[in-house]
């Protein structure tokens, strides 16, 4: 079963149950449904945990913990929370950051460096051609001004609080907040340009074969808000 970026998942055979149905079954107490969800999302979940934590054994712990959380909270999921995939990855992220912070006695900085502008493409590339792939997301991130990308990286993958980011970068709190906001809005502008639009749940719908544009966003301030 291939895993691909974004939602919906056109690669799902029609006779396989949808994520929402599986989650409802899990909420009803069916452990096999949870196992099926695990098989679908094990790699994307583990990969996120590993990226944040760095240690494979701890990343496994976090992934296990996250799927247990999915099992226990399956009854709380509603479509208003986004796709099942998005919801699940948010659980993984939250638990990974939680572990990271608990293991950091002081405001010690994480070992992970900023991702380089061009990353090694993995050997196995599951996406079907034409769907937005990780390269395009990386390109969008690389297109951001350095301070904005750094702030997002330290926050999302590093688990630093805004105070810790400010201490690390030497920027005032207000500037940190502003960089994160502008960076996210910049990503939004870039990535939505690559797509055919926004899905009903507010999540991305990916375009077909649009070459990524690594140029700067048109408006450096992103969408006004």
């Amino acid at each position: 079963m291939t895993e691909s970026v974004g939602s919906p998942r056109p690669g799902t055979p029609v006779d396989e149950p949808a994520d929402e149905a599986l989650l409802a079954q899990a909420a009803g107490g069916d452990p096999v449904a949870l196992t099926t969800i695990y098989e679908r999302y094990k790699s994307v979940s583990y990969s996120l945990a590993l990226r944040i934590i760095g240690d494979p054994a701890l990343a496994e712990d976090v992934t296990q913990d996250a799927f247990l959380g999915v099992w226990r909270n399956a009854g709380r999921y509603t479509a208003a929370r986004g796709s099942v995939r998005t919801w699940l990855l948010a659980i993984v992220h939250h638990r990974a950051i939680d572990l990271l912070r608990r293991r950091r006695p002081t405001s010690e900085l994480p070992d992970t460096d900023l991702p380089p502008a061009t990353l090694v493409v993995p050997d196995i590339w599951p996406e079907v051609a034409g769907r937005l792939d990780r390269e395009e997301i990386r390109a969008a991130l690389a297109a951001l001004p350095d301070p904005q990308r750094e702030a997002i990286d330290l926050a999302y993958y590093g688990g630093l609080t805004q105070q810790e980011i400010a201490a690390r970068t030497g920027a005032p709190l207000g500037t940190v907040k502003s960089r994160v906001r502008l960076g996210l809005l910049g990503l939004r502008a870039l990535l939505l340009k690559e797509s055919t639009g926004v899905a009903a749940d507010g999540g991305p719908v990916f375009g077909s074969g649009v070459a990524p544009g690594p140029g700067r966003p048109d408006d450096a301030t992103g969408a006004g808000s």
Partner: protein
Amino acid sequence: MSGLRSIDHATATDRAPLFVLGALDATETAEVRAHLASCPQEHPEFFELGGIVPYLAELPEQVTPPDTLRDRVVAAVAADLRARQRDDAAAERLVSRFGAPAAAAPAAPVAPAPAAPREDAQPVADAAPIILAERRRVPASLGRVLQLAAVLVAGALLAWNLVLQAEASAARQRAALLRDAIVASNEPGAIVARLAGTDAAPATSGFAVLPDAPSETGYLVLQGLGAAPAGKTYQAWFVTGDQPRSAGLLEVGSDGLAVLPGLRPDGPADAVAVTLEPAGGSRGPTLPILAVGLVKPGS
């Protein structure tokens, strides 16, 4: 959690970018959550910025975990399911041990709240043990109900601009109380009992937060109870072993919620239960139990 305060709309919006990335500390996060639960205004920024987060989640290089991880997940889920079944059995034993023996006909069920009854609700049989209604179901809609209730309270404030100062102040106090209860229940380590309605009151659900220090107090919040009939009142109970003791009387407010602050167990409690009693309360609970929940230590 010390230093928790109520934040205004502008502050919440200002925190949106960091909130969606998980970069606020525990207190700030709780303050934002409490605000979102009780603020009637829209918060488009949270959705706009939050929409980018899934891309960030998908970005890392993909690595397949070892097969052993699957085994661990399967085992953890199986263990949780067994624990849940044990809890259900324990709660049922607790419920059936109260007051009169199970063979006695329980009191007529309380008129349920305006919410539609569940399709599979069974009438309470005369001699049947009290069946817990979907005890496993966590109150998934509680957050929305509380949000709606807070909106109703806030809406009342806006509409009643000629109301007496005392009444407006009481409504604000109630909204603050709800907010405090929600925040307390979400604190890490909170001792919470999730309350689920029995067949006598299947539309009821809520939670109780118990203090973890003798000098502090907790909260009980329940939704889905209709107003108590004349001459009657709802009463909450702490249960230790099979011994109940009163936790206080509950009143259903105009927002449809029963909120009881000042909860003081004065000792360990295994469960929290709610019954309908004569006005003024009783020394011991009267069947049927309307809602019950096992106390879970903080995690």
